[in-house]
């Protein structure tokens, strides 16, 4: 078949986005693997680095430590999030939307902020230090509490989705058969949510094992893999060993990724077009218990954030408790000053803008272009890859790839551009999936009609697809923005003196012992993200009313 102008354009755009992902992901990953089998002078030495890694008991012990905290956190988070999600979807308690909003707070702050908060709550001068009963918050206890806080909303979102697709017809059947509610829970609710729970469990596991902010802040002498990467690279500038630990770190993350993909595929099959959404029935006792439970969790989340807010305003903890803004004088602290905050905002805006364009266009071609089947599936596969790569590893890989003197792209090293590219790549997959979901809802008839009217595809794209998908586009933009503000792991190796970031400043201020200013900078990130989210809600309400009117008419 002769290819049309449209086909060539499609090939052109698919190639551009494909090349982008190759440069931003595949080549750097190759660089990190090859670095791990080289010595300092760049000569191939096989697995010698790995041998010396596995013969160092302190480093190997980090693997056990990492697995230990990841598994414990996974169990706790999934249990807590499941009950919370259950309350939100299957009870008739009041204040559901409030609880939901509170539960999302941890997404708006850098992960390590919860660690800082715990120091103020349970540290040697903490408000509730007696509750520790002589145990140290510095170490596995602190890490696990902080990680639960950090991963809770991620698990919650997935489990809510899984629980809300439970088919009401099954519940009806169970009721008619006079099944006890506990039995219904185990035979209907749990099986339909099974895949969501497994998926959430692996997401939590990956988040914890690849997070280094929290163990860095509150881990004390308890070493984990992610911190080892950081120590090797930043502390000792031993890049080869950093590469080795990174490769070790990729394996559990890859495994989790693979399981998640398999499970996700099965999940989709449960929901058929004939499913009916299950509406919960009132049950006073049950609703009250759920209300109490959600309140306790919410109080926990608000305490963590509230403690940081308070600590950031206290002049000199714990000896001068008068309130002042001293800790917000970032220019006098280690870490980057107010410049780093403005840099973060710029970085987040660029990431949101360019990221949304790249991701949405990419998803459009994957979903809507009729020709070039292989190109589409390759592009989809490439778009799924970033999820399997921990941010820390991606950042390190960027050093190896972009700072190589022979790389023609060497000039972006140390600039804002590399931070933006790295952040877009790091958060590519989730955005890609959001875009795909939204595009799948648009009938392919639009493309068919426009093509039979001999209209080029980009006209349909701009006149139909983009306006219809505006909610998803905004969602992607906001996702990029919020994550660009909070991410530490992907950018900690890549910032330069001119492009210091707020999230990295939190880390560095804590490192230098300026904990209160670190809390203050973390709160600045929180205020910004919260404000952006609120503006987003207001704006989308207005815009959506205009652009999405047709949706409500049909209902």
């Amino acid at each position: 078949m002769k290819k049309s102008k449209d086909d060539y354009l499609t090939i052109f755009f698919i190639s551009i986005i494909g090349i982008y992902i190759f440069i931003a992901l595949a080549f750097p990953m190759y660089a990190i693997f090859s670095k791990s089998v080289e010595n300092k002078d760049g000569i191939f030495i096989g697995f010698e680095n790995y041998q010396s890694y596995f013969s160092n008991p302190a480093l190997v012990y980090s693997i056990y430590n990492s697995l230990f905290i990841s598994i414990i956190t996974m169990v706790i988070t999934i249990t807590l999030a499941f009950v919370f999600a259950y309350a939100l979807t299957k009870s008739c308690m009041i204040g559901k939307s409030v609880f939901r909003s509170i539960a999302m707070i941890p997404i708006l702050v850098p992960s390590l902020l919860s660690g800082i908060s715990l120091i103020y709550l349970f540290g040697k001068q903490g408000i509730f230090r007696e509750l520790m009963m002589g145990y140290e918050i510095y170490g596995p206890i602190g890490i696990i509490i902080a990680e639960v806080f950090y991963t809770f909303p991620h698990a919650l979102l997935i489990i809510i989705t899984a629980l809300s697709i439970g088919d009401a017809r099954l519940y009806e059947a169970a009721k008619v058969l006079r099944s006890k509610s506990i039995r219904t829970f185990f035979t209907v609710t749990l099986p339909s949510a099974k895949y969501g729970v497994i998926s959430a469990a692996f997401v939590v596991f990956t988040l914890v094992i690849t997070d280094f902010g929290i163990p860095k802040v509150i881990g004390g002498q308890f070493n984990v893999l992610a911190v080892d990467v950081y120590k090797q690279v930043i502390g000792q500038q031993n890049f080869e060993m950093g590469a080795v630990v990174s490769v070790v770190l990729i394996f559990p993350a890859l495994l989790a990724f693979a399981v998640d993909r398999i499970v996700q595929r099965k999940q989709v099959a449960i929901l058929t077009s004939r499913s009916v959404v299950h509406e919960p029935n009132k049950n006073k006792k049950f609703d009250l218990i759920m209300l109490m439970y959600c309140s306790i969790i919410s109080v926990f989340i608000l305490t963590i954030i509230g403690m940081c807010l308070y600590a950031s305003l206290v002049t000199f903890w714990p000896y001068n408790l008068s309130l002042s803004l001293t800790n917000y004088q970032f220019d006098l602290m280690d870490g980057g000053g107010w410049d780093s905050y403005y840099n973060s905002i710029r970085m987040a805006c660029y990431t949101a803008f360019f990221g949304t364009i790249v991701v949405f266009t990419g998803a459009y071609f994957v979903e809507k272009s009729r020709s070039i089947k292989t190109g589409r599936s390759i592009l989809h596969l490439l778009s799924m890859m970033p999820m399997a790569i921990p941010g820390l590893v991606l950042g390190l890989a960027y050093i190896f790839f972009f700072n190589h003197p022979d790389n023609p792209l060497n000039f972006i090293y140390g600039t804002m551009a590399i931070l933006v590219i790295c952040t877009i790549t790091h958060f590519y997959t989730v955005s890609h999936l959001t875009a795909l979901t939204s595009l799948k809802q648009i009938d392919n008839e639009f493309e068919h009609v426009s093509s039979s009217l001999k209209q080029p595809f980009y006209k349909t794209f701009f006149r139909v697809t983009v306006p219809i998908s505006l909610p998803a586009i905004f969602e992607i933009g906001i996702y990029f923005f919020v994550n660009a503000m909070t991410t530490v792991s992907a950018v900690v190796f890549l910032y330069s003196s001119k492009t210091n970031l707020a999230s990295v400043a939190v880390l560095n201020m804590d490192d230098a012992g300026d904990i209160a200013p670190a809390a203050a900078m973390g709160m600045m990130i929180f205020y910004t993200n919260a404000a952006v989210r609120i503006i987003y809600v207001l704006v989308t309400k207005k815009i959506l009313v205009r652009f999405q009117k047709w949706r409500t008419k049909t209902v």
Partner: protein
Amino acid sequence: MNKILTTISVAVVFLLSLANANAGSLTVYTAIEAEDLKRYAATFNEDHPDIEINWVRDSTGIVTAKLLAEKNNPQADIIWGLAGTSLMLMKGEGMFEPYSPKGIEKLDPKFRDGDEPASWTGIDAWVAAVCVNTVEMAKHGFSMPSSWEDLTKPEYEGHVAMPNPNSSGTGFLDVSSWLQIFGEDGGWDFMDRLHKNISHYTHSGSKPCKQAAAGEVPIGVSFAFRGARSKAKGAPIEIIVPSEGVGWEMEANAIIKGTDNLEDAKTLADWAITQKAMEMYNEAYAVVGMPGVAKPVEHFPPGLLDAMIKNDFEFAATNRKSILAEWQKRYDSKSEPKS
């Protein structure tokens, strides 16, 4: 179609504009306390407004490791304020552009490289000290320490913080001074006993004192300047000068070989040892490179200057690597299983 192409080209131009480099500026590597950086750059710019300073700051060990790692592809133009022992080590690696700044003869001979032209010039010195939180000490019923030896008293078990010498310059000057004060064997023996009392080793040299100031630990091995700053902020701390004597280290400057901005680097190297610069350092440091300039600094403990040991920098510089390796082998494994 045109619309798309325009959008793309705008985006590319935009990305490129993010990536442009600045001319007329210096990348300066340093380990000077962060709160002083803005002040230093501003004072320098009073005389040289056309040279922009881009600081890259981290703890001494980190900056040293970074410079060594970048040896073949240097990113820095000049070093302004990094431990003298690190600079001596790097001089041996041939990493500096030898240049005797104007007025070098006015510096105390200890504060300049003996070679002609000189590879490095010292600007000031920082001195070890112990920050002790009086409130927390009273709470635990501890007696105040007055010597290094006191820090090994069993009652302090788990109540002392000190910097990791691998990353912190202060940590390294502590370790190298103990090896000089107590002798090689006596020094390691002292550290073995001290290790039993250590609650944690920090990455930065100022953190133990800041933690002592905040009551997270009662005793923090740190340096006098940091203690004075925290005391000025109202922290209930005493700055103890151990009776055996205290280690100290100079901060020094050097131009990196291969800098693409040698002229500006020389201008900065010249300015950094002028009297004006020395007075600027003196606001925080009690000892500066030019004799006769220094005035007493507020909150500094009395007798500190007399307690400074006769530091053998040559010993510290040449043995830096082996001392650090030995230290790491002995103490860096606190995270290992207790089996």
